[in-house]
C-alpha cells in the first residue's frame, strides 16, 4: 500500500520551515516523552490501576501484532500470541524497573512468547538476531504484514483508505497542515507550533479537530468492518 499523498501547503512558512526541519529535529531532548509517559502508566499499573495498563494495551497492540507477523504467519495465532504477551506483561509488571522502554520490554516478551509458541508447534522459530531486537524501538513498518483478507475485507480497507484521504483533502488548510506535519513528518507539537507560528495549545486543538473530522467519516466504515472480522 502506497503512502497517502498530501498536497503541499500554500503557506510559505510551512515550506520554508520544512526545509529547516533537520535543524529543528536535531535538537536533543533530555527525555523521551513516549518513554516518560509509559513509565507513568506503568507505575500506575504497578499500584493496581488496570485502566493505566489498558492505555498501554491500546498503544501497543497493533505495533506488537505487526512485529510478530514477521515471525508467525497465521493471523489468528498472532492474535493469541499478542494476547498472551500482554497477559504475561501484566503478570510481570511489578518486575519492570524501567531499565528499558516499556515497549522494548513488551516486545521482548512478545518475541519469546512467539518463539515458545512455534517450538510447541514443532516449528523452528525464525531467528530474530540481536540487531533486530535492538531495532525494535524503531520498528514501524508493516511491510511484512501478510494479507489474509477476503475480497470483501480488501474492498472495505480500500474504502477506509479513501475515506481518510478524501476527508483530509477537504479539511480547512490549518487542520490539514497540522495533521500532515504530525502524521507524515512525525513532528512534535512544539516543532509544529514553530512552523505554523501559533501556540502549542492551538496545534493540539487543530490536530484533535482534524482527527475528529476524519474519525467521523471512519466510524461507520470501521464498525461495519469490525462485524466482518
Amino acid at each position, binding site marked *: 500500500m502506497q503512502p497517502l499523498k498530501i498536497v503541499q501547503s500554500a503557506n510559505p512558512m510551512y515550506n520554508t520551515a520544512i526545509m529547516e526541519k533537520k535543524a529543528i529535529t536535531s535538537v536533543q531532548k533530555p527525555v523521551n516523552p513516549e518513554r516518560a*509517559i509509559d513509565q507513568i502508566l506503568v507505575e500506575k499499573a504497578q499500584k493496581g*490501576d488496570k*485502566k493505566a495498563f489498558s492505555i498501554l*494495551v491500546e498503544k501497543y497492540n497493533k505495533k506488537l501484532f505487526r512485529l510478530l507477523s514477521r515471525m508467525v504467519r497465521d493471523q489468528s495465532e498472532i492474535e493469541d500470541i499478542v494476547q498472551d504477551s500482554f497477559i504475561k506483561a501484566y503478570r510481570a509488571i511489578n518486575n519492570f524497573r524501567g531499565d528499558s522502554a516499556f515497549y522494548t520490554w513488551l516486545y521482548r516478551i512478545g518475541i519469546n512468547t512467539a518463539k515458545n509458541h512455534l517450538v510447541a508447534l514443532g516449528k523452528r522459530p525464525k531467528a530474530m538476531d540481536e540487531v533486530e531486537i535492538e531495532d525494535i524501538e524503531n520498528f514501524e*513498518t508493516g511491510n511484512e504484514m501478510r494479507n489474509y483478507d477476503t475480497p470483501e475485507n480488501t474492498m472495505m480497507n480500500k474504502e477506509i483508505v479513501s475515506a*481518510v484521504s478524501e476527508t483530509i483533502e477537504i479539511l480547512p488548510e490549518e487542520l490539514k497542515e497540522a495533521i500532515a506535519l*504530525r502524521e507524515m513528518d512525525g513532528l512534535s507539537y512544539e516543532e509544529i507550533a514553530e512552523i505554523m507560528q501559533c501556540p502549542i495549545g492551538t496545534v493540539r486543538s487543530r490536530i484533535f479537530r482534524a482527527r475528529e473530522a476524519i474519525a467521523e467519516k471512519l466510524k461507520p466504515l470501521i464498525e461495519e468492518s*469490525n462485524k466482518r472480522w
Partner: protein
Amino acid sequence: MTEKNSSLFDNEINEEDIESLITTEIKKPNIRNQWLYYQTIRDVVRGEYSGPRNLSKKIMEAIDEEPTQIRGYRPAKELSINLNSYNWQLVLGFSILFAVAFVGFNSKTENTVAPVQLVYEEMPTEIMNAHYANTSSTANYFVQTTFVD
C-alpha cells in the same frame, strides 16, 4: 471524544492530564474507539494500513480476569502451592525435610560424649542421694560419685 486523549496518542500530554484521563475520561463510552480511529488515520497516512483489527478489547477482557497486580503485594494465588504443575523441587525439598524430622523425633537420644571430671570434692552422702533422686541421668551436669570409705 477528548483532546487529552488525542494528545496522549501523540505522547504530548503532561502528568496531570494523564491522571484526569485515567480517572474520568477513560470511563466515557467509545473512548477506546478513538484510539482505533487515530491509529487507522496514522496507518493510512503512512501507508501501513492493514485492516481495522483491534485486539485491545479482547486483551483487556482477559486481563480483567487476572488478579490485580500491586507492587509489594503477593496475591494468595502466588503463595499457595500449585498442585496442578509438577514442581518436583518443592516436593523433593519437603520430602527430605520430613524424613529428617521423622528420624530425629524417633531416634533415642544417647549421650555418647565421655564424662569429663570438672571437680573432685568429697560430698556428704545425703546431698548426693538428693541429687540422684531429683536429677535426670541425661542432665548436662550429672555428678558422678565415687564413694570413698
